[in-house]
């Protein structure tokens, strides 16, 4: 691939958030930012949209709820009506606990699964790190170097204001 990454390494949360914000508003294309922990405010600085995983979660939870409702009514009133203490066959209040548990179980497992698929996380995946310290104490901004007009000097100058540790070009691009 032609695309190259231009990396800036920082050691402080505030620095990386501010540098990202400045880089983003200067119009550069941010490939990604790598941090050792969840940095709050970074998603805004990067201009990321809120995750749509909440909708996936809602869909899975609704599926679990419907499964709970239909399975119990079908089993209790249609497939094998069972007389328990003369109660009606379709007694919703008694069905609520299982409906609730299925909602939580399928909603929770579903959203985790969706997240793993969406973020392409799976056991045994080849690890690509922009810098060896990124899971320890380094924060890395990775920019997309699109063409020859990309001015690495200007970016470096912009980042230096935020205590840049190191800036480098990287040929390989993660899949």
């Amino acid at each position, binding site marked *: 691939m032609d695309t190259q990454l231009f990396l800036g390494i920082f050691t402080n949360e*505030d620095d990386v958030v501010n540098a990202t914000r*400045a880089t983003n508003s200067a119009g550069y294309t941010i490939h990604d930012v790598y941090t050792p922990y969840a940095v709050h405010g970074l998603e805004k600085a990067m201009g990321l949209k809120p995750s749509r995983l909440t909708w996936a*979660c809602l869909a899975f939870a609704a599926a679990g709820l419907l499964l709970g409702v239909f399975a119990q009514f079908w089993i209790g009133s249609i497939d094998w009506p069972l007389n328990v203490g003369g109660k009606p066959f379709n007694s919703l209040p008694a069905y609520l606990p299982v409906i609730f548990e299925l909602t939580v179980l399928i909603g929770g497992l579903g959203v985790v699964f969706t997240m793993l698929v969406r973020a392409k996380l*799976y056991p045994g995946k080849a690890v690509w790190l922009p810098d060896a310290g*990124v899971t320890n104490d380094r924060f890395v901004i990775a920019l997309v170097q699109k063409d020859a007009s990309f001015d690495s000097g200007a970016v470096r100058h912009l980042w230096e*204001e935020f205590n840049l540790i190191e800036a480098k070009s990287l040929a390989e691009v993660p899949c």
Partner: protein
Amino acid sequence: MSTHYSKLRKPIIEGDKSLGQITDDVARTIERGPTRLWWFAFMLSFSVMVVGIVAVSYQIKVGIGTWGLNKTVGWAFDITNFVFWVGIGHAGTLISAILFLFRQRWRTSINRSAEAMTVFAVICAGIFPIIHMGRPWLFFWIAPYPNFRGPLWVNFRSPLLWDFFAISTYFTISLVFWYIGLVPDLATMRDRAKSKIKKAIYRVTSLGWNGSARTWNRYETVYVLLAAFATPLVLSVHSIVSMDFATSVIPGWHTTIFPPYFVAGAIFSGFAMVLTLMIIARKVLNYQEYITLDHIEKMCKVILATGGIVGLAYATEMFMAWYSVNEFERFAFINRALGPFAWAYWIMVSCNVIIPQLLWVKKLRRSIAFVFLMSIVINIGMWFERFVIIVTSIHRDFLPSSWAMYKPSLIEIATLLGSFGLFFSAFLLFARFVPFIAIGEVKGVLGYGRNKKANSKAVQNSERELEAVEV
């Protein structure tokens, strides 16, 4: 980091640590290899667990006639242990989910180990109803699946079935929640690992995590969603456990107060167990700067609050027994407090209500030795609470000629001991092989209460520019 700065706020993590130091501190306990103390503790717990395995094998082979049960007392020791262990688990979820939603940042130092405790406690709990079935190899009959017996379905109106759904959902969600929280830390361990085998194990378990902010964004979203699920889930679990009793018509069980009463009691006992474990762990693993005196004091306050609810519930039960003018209800409660099991009742009241009042004293809340002792006292008291509720309500039933007493057999006691052995063996393995403190989360609160702003001129400049833009 700077956003949390205020002179009134005390840093959560003591000692002026850098991010790298946190990684080192937490990883060190895993990388240094097992200590002699660890081997001693593990061997001890493992032997106790073996005692339990022998006892369980014996009672499965011979049958539950080996227990001290009789015609009148059909539920006793086994179900007591079940409710006790499920209750222990609740503190882990409270810390990881409810305190997360309430933005209690101090939870970060203890949530990993408390969640591990939850998972192990629920495993211990699950064993008891399964062996109580007498034929545990037919355990799967409780699951509703199409079968060749009709298909004959399970009874969805039975709280015992709700319990099966509640406990298995709770276990699954707790395990997933715990593992998802663990992934970034496993990646940290992977990037530090020197030996090939360790690196390979961490590489598989960390799912290729590389700290990408896009992934962090999704991860945080899922974390909030799981916390939002786990919060009502944890309340539902012990509510449903309490309905095993409350939906029956036994005086002493048949009360509407049971769900909130059980949930409060579960959190109360769970926090006591968290304190027992944390006070030992912070000393042995040298985490005093992470699990600080402030953490212990805060947990004591939770204990004080939930203990108050439990005390109120005891009083309300007594009041309702009198106020209901139901002679069976009255008898059950008079028998509970003054009958042949009065000793158990008063152990329960003193351990859960009277002695914990000492925690109102700040000096005692901050005394490690005292809090440790208190946590043991509460664990004992809460075990007795379940025993009192279960046994005193049924040992004198509606027909005086069938009144009976209950005494646990050695097999039952060995089973309880064995469950403690299993719990501590699992917890020791966890402390040995998994980052005990959530490295990633603790790093996120490192700046809390610290002024790092002054160090960075560029930050001040950029913030000034931003303000100018906003104006």
